[in-house]
């Protein structure tokens, strides 16, 4: 994976770090926009994963250590994982509804492979729209979340967000805001992931490398 930077730890607001000491944000600059379509190898891997995954696995998922850790964390920060599903369970549900992991493009497939294979979610951002390193903090009063239609939603103070120096980039475990989402004009992509208590470092590294390997093959 020549030309790809090593994963780096993002910052976590000091007060938040005291409260949730095991919450870590990892980022890595992946590189240029990958090809539009996934390679046949990636599509074959998605097909194999889909064929190995059955209905019972979707229920058993909550007992596996890594998806379970995200479920617990969801509860601890006031999210109901049966309402807003954890990323691994969301992928499992997609598999059950569509009957397979359908290919949606090289980047989406790379992120999907990472979460299905490791249970650790990975998100992608347009690097050019970011101001400095990424971190996690509570939203400040008056901060807003821009939408794709040009309007913006108010963020309640204290809402946990992934942010750069300029402001919130995404709500924790939500999709990136429209301003920072990867588009056709994106020249460089930055990946990030969230590690919570109970998720070993090796799984986080594996998730990032899986995404990099699938999206930006050597």
């Amino acid at each position, binding site marked *: 994976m020549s030309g790809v930077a090593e994963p780096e730890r993002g910052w976590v607001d000091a007060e938040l770090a005291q*409260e949730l000491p095991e919450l870590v944000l990892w980022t890595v600059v992946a590189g240029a926009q990958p090809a539009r379509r996934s390679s046949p190898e990636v599509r074959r891997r998605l097909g194999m994963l889909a064929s190995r995954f059955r209905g019972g696995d979707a*229920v058993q998922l909550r*007992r596996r250590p890594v998806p379970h850790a995200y479920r*617990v964390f969801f*509860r*601890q920060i*006031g999210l109901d994982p*049966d*309402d807003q599903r954890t990323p691994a369970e969301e992928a499992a549900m997609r598999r059950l509804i569509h009957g397979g992991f359908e290919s949606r493009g090289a980047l989406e497939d790379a992120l999907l492979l990472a979460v299905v294979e490791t249970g650790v979610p990975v998100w992608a951002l347009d690097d050019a729209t970011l101001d400095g390193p990424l971190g996690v903090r509570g939203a400040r009063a008056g901060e807003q979340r821009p939408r794709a239609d040009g309007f913006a939603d108010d963020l309640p103070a204290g809402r946990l967000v992934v942010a750069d120096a300029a402001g919130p980039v995404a709500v924790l475990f939500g999709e990136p805001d429209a301003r920072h989402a990867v588009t056709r004009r994106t020249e460089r992509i930055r990946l990030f992931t969230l590690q919570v208590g109970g998720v070993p470092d090796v799984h986080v590294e594996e998730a990032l490398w899986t995404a990099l390997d699938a999206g930006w093959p050597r």
Partner: protein
Amino acid sequence: MVLIDPYAQELTLGLVTETDERAARRTLRDQIARLEAQLADCVATAFAARDVVPFAIAGAHGPRVLGIAELERVRDDLAERLAGARRELTAIGLAQERARVRLERMLLAPGEHRFARVSTAELGEGGCGVYQVRPRLGLIGMLAGWWHVKLSSGCPLAT
């Protein structure tokens, strides 16, 4: 007798510090983690037994650091749901146990349980099979008192 509520600030004389509250929140988060693990076990066990136990817990609005009261509410909701799930699982287990005993009695003395039926679903097994006490050779067996337990061939064919 004087009852002291440790969370009532006016009675603590300033002894409950931010650190104490943080420790309390950490304890509550640990309790939530344990309860979630137990609830996940119950849900998965019920699924394996081809049944469903209720497990949904209402979440707060959006991700944020929860205070003691909110964490307590999540913990209490989880504990309540877990208790309900365990009651449900116990009832399922007892019903399956009763069905198993009925089946054993049918196998031991078919003549005393003529035409009795136990489905595999009642036993917590998959498929549509039904154990039934039936006479051997039809009418002849019925008249002669030749009874045995037969397992039906399974699910009806899809039309």
